[in-house]
């Protein structure tokens, strides 16, 4: 059976959920061979094996942390040369997309980004994508070279599928471009203890209607009652009420949770672009004409300052 390369997104050996989803998709096309780079790469093997990786190629070198993107491209290319896979799958993070794109140029392949589903097809893997702020669904293929495909979080279930997952060291030689962009400083994000926005099953977002940084506490309280991640519209982010990393939409994160709750958000096209594929959508807005209500499964026309706290209290009461 053909092998499929899966690029592993991990933090110091802790594999992030979208990578496990990629393994599910990879198994539809062939045998997953994982590539894990950087500090803690070896520690990823156990969980990757549980989810179907037949092999885990690992490499660590200071270059991965000290220079931007290109060292990882060199390593993924080394894995590609070693395996000759039928496809290369990479998580659709900002960095993942850049790595995938540069690999595609080098190996003379087409690239598909932000797939939300993947199936085997007669002419190679068929990717489902969303277009025009998720108002269209397209199916496409890579028609030249080995398909390189980046896949969004929440595109497939995580499935247990025990495989060998034997660790093999990957030999990497860095090219001249690898040290072009130096990372001279790094400030890690502080953990909020809440789920990662793109991976969360429930996202609770606030917009301009929240009217102040100090008021985001009621959005956070609702999120915490549901074990949800917190999102924000660009208006709320631009006003400085919430960090940009939490922005949902075209120039922020794109989310596709089971449940999305928008409070004080009008539903502009650029915001929709990042949340329209959520399974269930709920909105609280005092303007009955707000476009967000066109999307909702359930909407409350009302003041978020009374509706949201009442909802939070009711959820807590029901959960006991």
């Amino acid at each position, binding site marked *: 059976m053909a092998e499929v390369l899966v690029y592993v997104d991990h*933090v110091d050996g802790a594999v992030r959920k979208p990578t496990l989803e990629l393994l599910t998709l990879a198994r539809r096309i062939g045998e997953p061979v994982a590539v894990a780079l950087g500090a803690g790469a070896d520690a990823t093997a156990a969980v990757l094996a549980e989810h179907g990786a037949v092999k885990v190629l690992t490499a660590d070198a200071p270059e991965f942390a000290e220079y*931007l*993107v*290109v060292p990882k491209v060199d390593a993924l290319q080394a894995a590609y040369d070693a395996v000759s896979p039928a496809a290369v799958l990479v998580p659709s993070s*900002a*960095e993942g*997309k*850049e790595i995938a*794109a*540069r690999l*595609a*140029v*080098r190996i003379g392949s*087409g*690239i598909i*980004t*932000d797939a939300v589903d993947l199936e085997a097809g007669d002419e190679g893997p068929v990717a489902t994508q969303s*277009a*025009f702020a*998720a*108002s*269209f*669904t*397209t199916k*496409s*293929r*890579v028609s*030249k070279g080995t398909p390189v495909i980046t896949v969004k979080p929440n595109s497939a279930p995580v499935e247990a599928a025990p495989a060998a997952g034997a660790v093999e060291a990957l030999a990497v030689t860095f090219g001249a*471009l690898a040290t*072009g*962009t130096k*990372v*001279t*400083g*790094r*400030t*890690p*994000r502080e953990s909020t203890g809440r789920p990662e926005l793109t991976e969360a099953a429930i996202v609770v977002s606030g917009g301009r209607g929240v009217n102040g940084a100090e008021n985001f506490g009621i959005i956070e309280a609702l999120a915490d009652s*549901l074990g949800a991640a917190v999102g924000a519209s660009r208006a709320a982010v631009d006003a400085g009420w919430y960090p*940009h*990393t939490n922005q949902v939409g075209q*120039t922020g994160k794109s989310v596709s949770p089971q*449940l999305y709750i928008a409070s004080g958000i009008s539903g502009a096209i650029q915001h929709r*672009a990042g949340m329209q594929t959520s399974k269930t959508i*709920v909105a*609280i807005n005092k303007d*009955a004409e707000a476009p967000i*209500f066109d999307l*909702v*499964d*359930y909407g*409350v026309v*009302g003041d978020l300052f*009374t*509706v949201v*706290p*009442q*909802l939070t*209290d009711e*959820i807590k009461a029901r959960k006991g």
Partner: protein
Amino acid sequence: MSLRIVVCVKYVPDATGDRQFTEDLTVNRDDVDGLLSELDEYAVEQALQIADEADDAEITVLTVGPEDAKDALRKALSMGADKAIHVEDDDLHGTDVMGTSLVLAKAIEKAGYDLVITGMASTDGTMGVLPAILAERLGVPQVTLLSEVKVEDGTVTGRRDGDTASEQLEASLPALVSVTDQSGEARYPSFKGIMAAKKKPVESWDLEDLEIEADEVGLEGSWTAVDSAAQRPARTAGTIVKDEGEGGKQLAEFLAGQKFI
């Protein structure tokens, strides 16, 4: 010595219009008004600020696109760019990111550059991979997704706010930079700027000028194939209630019914 800046700008269908695909499954660029991609205005803005800081700089805006794409160039010129290059050729219809990046790379090399600046993503294709591909093709450092950028003494530095960390980056020129919409509000063209733009030079190049064969680009030369495009079914109308004092409780009841509580 003059700092030569090339800014890549894209002409895109207005996102607030009713965007559609054509029969050959390419983006319909005829029935919706087009404009300079808002995200590329940030690239033009940063170019202008970098040029202001430099002793001597020249900003060239570059687009690959149909006849109407000149509008995007005019807008960038009216913001303050010095000259423009429009790459246009009938054989370019349906070109995907691999082909577009090839054309842009050849055009940038022909124009001459010290610094290339792009937006973070186009608002129609929204792939956001072209900058990385361009850096690979040009063989220069990639300094991408910057929310802050500075150029001094032949070195570009900037801040990249990533998923897990905020990084400080540094590279020597020549280099490729892409900027996000966090990099700073783009200026509006002044009346004077709009008038001046009318006199600024816009060069037109075709594939032959760039020594690119027709079969390397276009729909035929595309590296990817779109097999189908279907409009997402409209979401079924949901329940909408007016809060009469029990709105939060009613919503909780709905969520419980959906097993979220």
